[in-house]
C-alpha cells in the first residue's frame, strides 16, 4: 500500500509500559490494516496485532539507550511503547502509521476490506438479525395512540433521523413538518420508548429554535399531541439535559429551550450534563491518571477527582433515574432534548430504558437499544469516535459513558443483567475498530449511501453467534432483581473506577482469579451432568424393563474437580510477584515460563479469527505482571536508583 514507507523493521523493542526494563525484542511489520509485532524469541510465537483504526495517537519521544521511542495510544486504551533502533526507521513508521490510522475517506475503513468467509445471503441474514420494528411491536406499537409516520421516509424532514419514526396518532404531517422547522437539524419530537403498562412515553428531539421569544404553533401542537397520547396524565415533563447556563447561551443563537408559558401543561426541567468538549477533556484527564507509571494512592484518587469523570457518569445516571421515575412511578410522559439531541439525549434515553425495562438488560435487548437510541437516531459515531481524520473537537466519549453507566448498574445489580462486562468491552472495542459496518457514518442516511448493509458485516450477529462468551452466570430471567424497575443508589461511593475498561491491558492489576469464569465452568459442567443424569435414568429404566439387552457406554467419570483447570490457568498469573521493591531487588524471579495464553482471567478476549485485539502484549506471565511498583513518596529512602544495588547499599 502506498502509505507504507517501511513494511518491516527488525530489532524493535516492545517495552513494558510500567517497567521499561522489561522488554521484548522482535520485528515490526506494517500491513494495510494492522501493525504487527512478532517476538524473536525461539520457540515462542508471540504476536501483537494492532488494527490501524484503533490507533488514537502516536507519540515520538526523545531517543534513549534502547532506541527511538514510539508510543501508540489506542482507542481501546491499550498503550504500546516501541523502541526503534534507527531514527529514520522511527520516522518512517511514525509517518506511515500517522497516515494509516487517519483514513481520509470511508472507503479506506477496515470494514470495507474485512472479508470473513461469508456469502452474500448470509451477510444479508447478519443484517436482518437486528429488527427495530420488532422492538416497537414488543412495546405494543403501533397502537391507538402512536403510529408509524412515513414523514421522514426520504430523510427530507430530518436528514439525521431514521426513516421510520413513531409519532402521536393525532400528529398530522403539517404538524410534524412545522415542528421540525422549529427544531435544530429538523429533529422534531418523536418516540423513543413506550411503556405499555401505563401509556407513558419517552420522546426525544433537539432544542427548539425559540431564541428570546419565537414560538411555533405546530411545535406546541406536537407536544400537546404527545401529552394527549398518554390518557392517564394531565401534564408532561420536558427535560433539557444541558446545564441551564448553556441553554440560555443558546438563546442568543436563536436556539434555546421551551417557554412553559407557551406550551400547555408542561413541566420544564434542566438536568446539568456537560457538553461533549467537557467530556472529552475529562476522559483525557482520567486516562492520564490510568497511564501513570507507579502512582501513589493519592495521585490516583486526586487525579480521578480532578478529571471529574465519575461526576459526569453520575450526572448521566441521575438524569436517567429522573426520567425513569416520571415514566414508571408518575406515569407521565417525558420529552428529552439537549442541543442537537444526539449525544446527551441518546445517553439519557438509553439509560432510562435500561432502568425501566428488563428486556434492555438482556444480550439482545442491549444490542437493540444501542441500535435504536444511538445508531438509528443519528449519534454521530464517525465524528465522535474519530473514524476518519476530521475535526478533533467533534470527538467525544459519549457512548463510552453510556456503556459505563450500564457497567455501574451491573456492579449494583449483579443478577439483573444477562450479559457480562466482557460484552460491554467487546462492543466498546468494535465501536472504534471499524471492523463492522454498524457504527460507520453519522446517521442512517449516510450508511445507506455507503451501502453498509451490502458491503460490510454486522457486529450484532457476530456477538449473538458467540453469545456464550458474554453470558453473566448469575443472571436468571425469573430472579426478583431481573424484574421491573432498577432503583440504583447514586450516592457517590456507589460509583467505581472501571478498571476493566480503562486499564484493560494492564494485566497485573486485575483480580487473579475470576469468580465469573469459575461459575461459568461450573455451569458448563452442570449442563453435562444434567445430560448424563438423563441418559443414566434412561438406561436404568431400559435395563430394568427389558432385563435383557444393554449397551454399556462408559461415560467419563467426574472424579476430577471441574474447576481444577481454571485455577491452574489463573494461577500461572497469580504466582508472579509484582515489583514491590521499586527495583530494590534486582534479581529476576525464578518462575518458569508458562506458555502464552491470552485468555487469562477477565480479559475480554475477542474470539475473532483475525485476532485484531491480540492480547499477547504481555502474555509472558513474568513480564506480564505490570511493574506497578510501590515507591511511595514516603519511602523514597529505600532506594533512589533502581538499577544500582551498590548505590542503595551505601545510601542506606
Amino acid at each position, binding site marked *: 500500500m502506498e502509505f507504507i514507507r517501511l513494511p518491516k523493521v527488525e530489532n524493535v523493542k516492545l517495552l513494558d509500559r510500567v517497567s521499561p526494563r522489561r522488554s521484548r525484542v522482535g520485528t515490526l511489520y506494517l500491513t494495510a490494516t494492522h501493525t504487527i509485532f512478532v517476538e524473536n524469541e525461539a520457540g515462542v510465537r508471540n504476536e501483537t496485532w494492532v488494527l490501524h483504526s484503533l490507533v488514537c495517537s502516536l507519540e515520538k519521544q526523545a531517543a534513549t539507550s534502547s532506541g527511538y521511542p514510539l508510543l501508540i495510544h489506542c482507542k481501546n486504551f491499550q498503550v504500546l511503547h516501541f523502541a526503534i533502533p534507527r531514527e529514520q526507521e522511527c520516522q518512517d513508521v511514525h509517518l506511515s502509521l500517522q497516515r494509516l490510522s487517519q483514513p481520509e475517506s470511508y472507503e479506506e475503513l477496515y470494514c470495507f476490506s474485512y472479508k470473513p468467509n461469508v456469502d452474500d445471503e448470509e451477510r444479508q441474514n447478519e443484517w436482518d438479525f437486528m429488527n427495530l420494528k420488532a422492538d416497537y411491536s414488543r412495546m405494543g406499537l403501533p397502537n391507538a395512540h402512536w403510529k408509524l409516520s412515513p414523514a421522514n421516509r426520504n430523510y427530507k424532514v430530518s436528514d439525521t433521523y431514521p426513516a421510520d419514526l413513531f409519532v402521536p396518532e393525532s400528529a398530522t404531517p403539517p404538524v410534524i413538518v412545522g415542528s421540525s422547522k422549529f427544531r435544530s437539524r429538523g429533529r422534531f419530537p418523536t418516540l423513543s420508548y413506550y411503556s405499555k403498562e401505563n401509556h407513558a412515553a419517552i420522546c426525544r428531539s433537539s432544542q427548539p429554535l425559540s431564541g428570546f421569544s419565537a414560538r411555533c404553533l405546530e411545535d406546541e401542537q406536537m407536544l400537546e399531541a404527545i401529552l394527549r397520547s398518554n390518557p392517564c396524565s394531565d401534564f408532561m415533563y420536558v427535560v433539557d439535559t444541558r446545564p441551564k447556563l448553556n441553554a440560555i447561551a443558546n438563546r442568543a443563537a436563536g436556539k434555546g429551550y421551551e417557554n412553559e408559558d407557551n406550551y400547555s401543561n408542561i413541566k420544564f426541567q434542566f438536568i446539568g450534563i456537560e457538553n461533549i468538549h467537557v467530556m472529552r477533556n475529562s476522559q483525557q484527564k482520567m486516562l492520564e491518571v490510568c497511564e501513570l507509571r507507579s*502512582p*501513589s*494512592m*493519592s495521585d*490516583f*484518587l*486526586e487525579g480521578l*477527582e480532578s478529571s*471529574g469523570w*465519575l*461526576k459526569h457518569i*453520575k450526572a448521566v445516571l441521575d438524569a436517567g433515574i429522573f426520567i425513569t421515575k416520571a415514566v414508571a412511578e408518575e406515569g407521565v410522559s417525558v420529552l428529552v432534548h439537549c442541543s442537537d439531541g444526539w449525544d446527551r439525549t441518546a445517553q439519557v434515553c438509553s439509560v432510562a430504558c435500561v432502568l425501566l425495562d428488563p428486556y434492555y438488560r438482556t444480550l439482545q435487548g442491549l444490542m437493540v437499544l444501542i441500535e435504536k437510541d444511538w445508531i438509528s437516531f443519528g449519534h454521530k459515531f464517525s465524528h465522535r469516535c474519530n473514524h476518519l481524520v476530521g475535526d478533533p473537537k467533534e470527538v467525544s466519549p459519549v457512548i463510552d459513558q453510556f456503556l459505563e453507566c450500564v457497567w455501574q448498574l451491573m456492579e*449494583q445489580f*449483579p*443478577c439483573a443483567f444477562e450479559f457480562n462486562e466482557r460484552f460491554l468491552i467487546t462492543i466498546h472495542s468494535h465501536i472504534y475498530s471499524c471492523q463492522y459496518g454498524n457504527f460507520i457514518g453519522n446517521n442512517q442516511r449516510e450508511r445507506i449511501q455507503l451501502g453498509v448493509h451490502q458491503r460490510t458485516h454486522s457486529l450484532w450477529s457476530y456477538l449473538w453467534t458467540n453469545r456464550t462468551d458474554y453470558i453473566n452466570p*448469575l443472571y436468571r430471567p425469573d*430472579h426478583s432483581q431481573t424484574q421491573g424497575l432498577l432503583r440504583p*443508589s447514586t*450516592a*457517590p*461511593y*456507589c*460509583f467505581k473506577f472501571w478498571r476493566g475498561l480503562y486499564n484493560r491491558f494492564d494485566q497485573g*492489576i*486485575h*483480580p*487473579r*482469579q475470576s*469468580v465469573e469464569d*469459575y*461459575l461459568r465452568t*461450573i*455451569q458448563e459442567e452442570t449442563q453435562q*451432568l*444434567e445430560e448424563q*443424569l438423563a441418559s*443414566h435414568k434412561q438406561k*436404568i429404566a431400559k*435395563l430394568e424393563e427389558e432385563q*435383557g*439387552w*444393554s449397551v454399556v457406554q462408559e*461415560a467419563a467419570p467426574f472424579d476430577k474437580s471441574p*474447576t481444577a483447570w481454571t*485455577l491452574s490457568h489463573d*494461577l500461572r498469573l*497469580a*504466582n508472579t510477584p509484582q515489583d*514491590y*521493591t521499586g527495583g530494590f*531487588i534486582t*534479581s529476576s524471579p525464578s518462575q518458569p515460563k508458562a506458555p502464552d495464553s491470552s485468555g487469562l482471567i477477565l480479559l475480554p478476549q475477542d474470539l475473532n479469527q483475525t485476532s485484531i485485539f491480540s492480547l499477547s502484549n504481555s502474555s509472558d506471565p513474568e513480564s506480564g505482571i505490570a511493574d*506497578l511498583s*510501590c515507591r*511511595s513518596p*514516603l*519511602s523514597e*529512602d*529505600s532506594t533512589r536508583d533502581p538499577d544500582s544495588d551498590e548505590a542503595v547499599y551505601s545510601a*542506606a
Partner: protein
Amino acid sequence: MEFAELIKTPRVDGVVLHRPFLPTVEGTLCLTGHHLILSSRQDNTEELWLLHSNIDSIEKRFVGSLGSIIVKCKDLRVIQLDIPGMEECLNIASSIEALSTLDSVSLMYPFFYRPMFEVIEDGWNSFLPEDAFKDLESMTDEWRLSEVNKDFSVCPSYPPLVAVPKDIDDETLRKVATFRHGGRFPVLSYYHKKNGMVMMRAGQPLTGTNGRRCKEDEKLINATLRPGKRGYIIDTRTINVAQQAKARGGGIESEANYPQWRRIHKAIERSNVLQESLIKLVEACNDQSHNMDRWLSKLEASNWQTHVKEILTTACLAAQCIDREGASVLVHGTEGTDTTLQVTSLAQIILDPSCRTIRGFQGLVEREWLQAGHPFQQRCAQSAYSNSKPRQEAPVFLLFLDCVWQILRQFPCSFEFSESYLVLLFEHAYASQFGTFLGNSAAERAKLSLPEKTVSLWSWVNRHQEIERLTNPLFEANSLVIWPSVAPQSLLLWEGVFLRWNRSSKCLDEAYEEMVHIIEYNKELQNKVNSLRRQLAQLETEDPLLQTP
C-alpha cells in the same frame, strides 16, 4: 460496684428505634449491666440487643419533651432511639455513657457471659505454642522452644514460649532483650518450608545516639543465616523516623555491625495518624451531600487507602525476599507490636496456604497478634465515632483485616473463608461476649485468668453451623504463593465494613446466594449422577446376559 447504681431508669416504654434499611420499631427499652435491649410489645420478639461495649459514642437531641439518643457503634452502625420524656431520655443517656466506658476489664461482659451453645472444642487450647512448634520440628531442627520468658520477666509483651535459633541459649536471649525495645528480642515468626528461609520479628534495637552495640543480638540474628547468605531487615519506618528514634534511645541496625544484612525502610503509619484516618474515612462514608468531588476528595484526604497500600506493599516485599530471593527476613518498627505484626502476618497469608483456611487464619491471629502482644485492649478501646481524644487507639488490626480482604478480592477462590469471617473478627476485636481480644498481652490475659473465666471466640467459631456460615463456596485449595497487586486501581474500599450501614446490600446478598446456589446444584447433580452410575453398574452385573456370555 453494682451495675444497678449506674442504671437510673432500667425500662422505658414507647421507645422508637430507627435503624438503617430496617423498618422502625416501637417497643420497650431495657438497660441491663451489659446490654441495651429494645423489644417490641406486639409480639415480644427482641428487636435489638446491643452490647454497651459496642457503643462508641452517643448524642442527645430534644424536640419538646421527645428526646432522641443517637447511638454510634464501634462496628460503625448508627441507630437512633426516640424516647418520650426528657428525664427518661437523660437517664438512659447517662447510663449508656457510663456503662459503655467502664474502665475495669473484669467488669466486661465476657466475664459474665455463659455460652448458650455446646463447647465442643475449647478455643483457649486450640492454638498452643507447643503444638505450633511440633509442626516446625517436623520441618527443621534448627530452632528450639525457649522458656526464658515463662514468667514474663524478660519481655512483658511476649508469650511464655518463643521459638529461637537452636544455638542461642537463654542467657544470650536475656542480654539481647535488654538491647531491643520492650525486651522484644528477635523471635521466629514464620518458617518457609519451600526453601527453609525464615521471617523473624523484634522491637527496634536500642542503639541510641552513640551507636550502642550488642554482640549477642548480632549473633542471634546471624545464626539464622545460611553460610554466605545475606538477609534483609525490613524496618517499617522511614529512614528519617528511624534516625530520630535514636534520640529516644531507639535506632537501627548499622551496616558496620550487621554486614550480612541489608536494611530496607518502608513507610507504614502508626498510632494517632491511623485513628484519624479511620475517623476521616468513616466521616466521608457518612457524608450525605451526594457530591462526587467531595466524596473523592474526602476519601483521598482520609489516606486510608494509602495505608492499605503501604502495608500490603511491605508485606509483599517481605514475602518476596523470602520466596523469591531465598533470603531470611527480620521485621521491626519501633515497638514491634503494630506495623511489624501487620507485615509478618500478611506475608504469611501470601506465602502460606494454610493461613488461608478458617482454622489456619485463627492460628495466625493467635500467633501473630494475640500471643505476639498486639495491645488489643488499648488499640480497640474506641472506634471511629469516639469524641474523646484518642490515647492509644489505632485501627491497626482493622487495617490488617482490610489488607486480607484486598487479597481475598484478588484471589476469590484461594481462601477457605469468606468476607464475613473478616467482618466478624473486626466486630469481636472491638466488642465481644468472648474473652479472646481482652487484655494487651499474654501476660495480662494470664493475670486475668481469661481461659478459666471467659469463653474463647474460637470455641464459638469452630462449630459446624458457624464454619458453614463463614466458608467461601468458591474455595479450591491452592498450594501456591499468591502475589497481590498493589496498584491503586486494584485496591478497593472495603464496602462490607465501611459502607455496610450506608447502603442496602440486598442485591449483592442475592448475588452471593445465587452463586452458592449454582455451586450447590452442581454438587447435588454430581452426587445424583454418581449414585445412578453405581446403580447402573450394579444392574449391568446382575444382567443375566452379561453374566453368562
